[in-house]
């Protein structure tokens, strides 16, 4: 027997406490369901596949101030030295570094500028034929650059490159039929033939509108500022990273080598704000659920101490212990139920508000349902302890003081 009616009447006699509990449960449900949704969104963002063996890759910057060398000759010397190092799988100079948050992007189109045509935002890497292997990205169709397709030059005006290797995502966006291989695409008015298509690899910005569109262009410009990427054998990265500055300076000393960072570290820096948000929300909802549970626990204890005599009388009149426990569980379930209904409405409203003002997708109902179940179970657990204590009140209490 659930005895809802007498419990409801009893509740009406201490409305304020019940209402307070109800408010707490409603707000908690609203916050937790929305926060859980945001957390889930961030976890998916943080754990996405980038396409790179991040643990084995690192990059560094070179800033040359000496003027007594030929920059592109120096490039050849440097990569030859890096590729010959024990522990290094491959190395390349790369104009942009993936996942780092900085790089170059432009529109790649079906027709040369300034003609109007389908045009897609694309991050591009100027890199040589070792680029793909260095990044550890596989070709899924076509071929890589050959050595003599790579243009190495000190001047930015040479425009004789005419091939490119692109990601599948870019090829399919420009050629939805999937027949991009062998076609010509335009970087400004520069025609580039697609000779290869790669497995997914991310560009420099994970939060870009088109994070998967990447084009590799076989071009090395000898410049005072350059970035190198090195892939090492597993577990040898730290050793190579430690040495690289001295080795590079030994090759040529009038330059600065800095920003020696693993690709995983670069990604961590780029996503740090999202990680922070995720952590703060997790802390927030954990404490919130605990505070609400404590509130329920405290209020039940208070109610029991207020009703000690009534409980004793009920026991003296023949109520079983289980009836007393049931009483408190049902009472709690009633409050919690109403609180959860209000909470679901509040969660929807809050979700709508967040969607209106911020770039957050609409809250799926499953999150509200999940939260409601968790809050309900938690409230039952919080009540169970005090209810058992109430059941142990001796019937003699009732007879003693009256």
């Amino acid at each position: 027997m659930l005895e809802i009616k007498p419990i409801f009447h009893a509740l009406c006699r201490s409305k304020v406490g019940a209402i307070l509990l109800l408010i707490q449960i409603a707000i908690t449900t609203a916050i937790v369901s929305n926060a859980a949704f945001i957390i889930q969104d961030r976890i998916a963002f943080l754990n996405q596949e980038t396409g790179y063996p991040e643990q084995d890759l690192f990059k560094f910057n070179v800033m040359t101030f000496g003027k007594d060398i030929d920059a592109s000759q120096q490039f050849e010397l440097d990569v030859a030295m890096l590729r010959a190092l024990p522990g290094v799988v491959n190395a390349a100079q790369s104009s942009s570094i993936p996942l780092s948050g900085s790089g170059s992007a432009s529109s790649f189109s079906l027709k040369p500028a300034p003609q109007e045509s389908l045009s897609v935002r694309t991050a591009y890497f100027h890199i040589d034929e070792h680029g793909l292997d260095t990044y550890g990205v596989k070709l899924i169709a076509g071929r890589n650059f050959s050595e003599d397709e790579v243009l190495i030059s000190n001047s930015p005006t040479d425009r004789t490159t005419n091939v490119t290797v692109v990601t599948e995502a870019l090829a399919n966006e420009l050629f939805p039929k999937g027949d991009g291989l062998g076609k010509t695409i335009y970087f400004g008015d520069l025609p580039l033939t697609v000779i290869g298509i790669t497995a997914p690899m991310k560009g420099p910005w994970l939060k870009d509108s088109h994070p998967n569109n990447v084009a590799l262009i076989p071009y090395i410009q000898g410049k005072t500022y350059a970035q190198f990427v090195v892939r090492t054998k597993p577990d040898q990265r730290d050793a190579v990273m430690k040495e690289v500055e001295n080795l590079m300076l030994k090759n040529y000393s009038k330059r600065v080598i800095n920003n020696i960072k693993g690709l995983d570290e670069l990604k961590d820096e780029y996503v740090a704000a999202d990680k922070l948000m995720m952590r703060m929300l997790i802390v927030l909802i954990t404490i919130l659920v605990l505070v609400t549970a404590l509130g329920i626990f405290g209020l039940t204890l208070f109610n029991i101490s207020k009703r000690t005599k009534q409980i004793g009388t009920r026991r003296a009149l023949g109520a079983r212990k289980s009836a007393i426990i049931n009483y408190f569980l049902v009472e709690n379930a009633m409050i919690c139920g109403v609180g959860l209904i209000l909470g679901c409405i509040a969660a929807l409203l809050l979700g709508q508000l967040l969607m209106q003002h911020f770039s957050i997708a609409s809250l799926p109902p499953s999150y509200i349902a999940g939260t409601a179940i968790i809050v309900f179970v938690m409230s039952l657990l919080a009540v169970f302890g005090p209810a058992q204590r109430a059941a142990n009140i001796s019937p003699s209490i009732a007879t003693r003081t009256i």
Partner: protein
Amino acid sequence: MLLHYLDLSWRSFKRTPLVSMLMVLAIAIGIGVTMTSLSVYHMMSSDPIPHKSSQLYNVQLQTMDEGHTWWTGDDIPMQLTYQDAVNLHNAPIPNKKVAMMRTGFSVYLDSDKVKPFTGEARMTTPDFFNMFDVSFIYGGVWSEQQEQSAAPVVVISKELNDKLFAGENSIGKLVYLDDDSYQIVGVIADWPLNLKYYDLNNGAFDKVADLFLPFSLIKAKELTSWGNSNGWKHENIYSYADKMQSEIVWIQFWAQLDNPEQKANYNNYLNSYIQEQKKRGRFTREKPEYSLLDVNQWMQYNNVVSEDNKILVGLSFMFLAVCLANILGLLLAKFLRRAPEVGVRRALGASKRQVFLQHLVEVAMLGFIGGLLGIVLAQIGLLGVRQSYEYYKNIASMDLVMLLSAPVIAITTCIVAGLYPAWLVCKTNPAIYLKSQ
């Protein structure tokens, strides 16, 4: 009387230590969570230069042809082209204006004492220091004449001066940047800026530059920007001279307009500038568009306070509401249990008002203790933020305003929670309780 109430409150606190501690804990957790997110929000959004923020205006010009869009709210590019920046800087008004760009150099000395390293530089016209309130320890800014002639001079930060010259007066000494030597003309004092408001394009919370050099050196040394360079038009750019004449935007520009009259004059000037450029085939839009945003508007325009942070502040205040409901419940229990005692006090002549006040003082005291404990929790929270996100190092801290608001918010919350229980208890009818004793 207040002291007496405080004494009573303390006695009451000790009489029911568990319930009291629970209440203090509830308010402390609420304040800790709220203050953590509010402090970050406060540091991000607070005016970086309050006495001048409404006189400093970032200048934007709509250089794009009809139909082109930008990612800003009003579709106007955030930076200027080189030619526009130079033209606006050569204009007769306003008195103080600055064109600038971020770049960097390899820094080293003649001796081998310092290993060459990379220094971040700001190429800027000389008004920068005056407009943004930068003070000097040694020397000062380069002269107008040196600016015109692209003289190899440099102003360095205190940090760099400490590193290169052990903090001594380094005016007149030479420092090598890339392959040229530059004479140091000034060393700026520590410039503790939480928010690099004058350049929000490149890491709003990054530290300020190490080196400051004349803007005219950009052309002389053909320097490239370390910030964003954005184009919207298809142009063939084969040389540095092409870039100087192109529609690529990469220069930041600020003007100081001290009063509405100056602002009106500058508006007129910008309109006529756009008309004049139209004759040369630029600014093809029918309606001239430009934008002058002051420091605070510029911060909003650039969304300095992240979306995440706004959401967190909102959620933390809802969290505080849950804590408030929690405290209210506990206070109700505590105060009502004390009804017999209050009955006696009322019978002995205490007025309702006095009883009410006494209870409010008690909750305020709980709020105060909770607020202090909340500050401790918030510090732990902020430490976590700093550990988790290096970039927020300067932002994730509490300034005096936040330290003072913590107890104020705590006490206010507690008093709001305490109003109803205190009112209930002061309504106590003394007769009932006297009868039963």
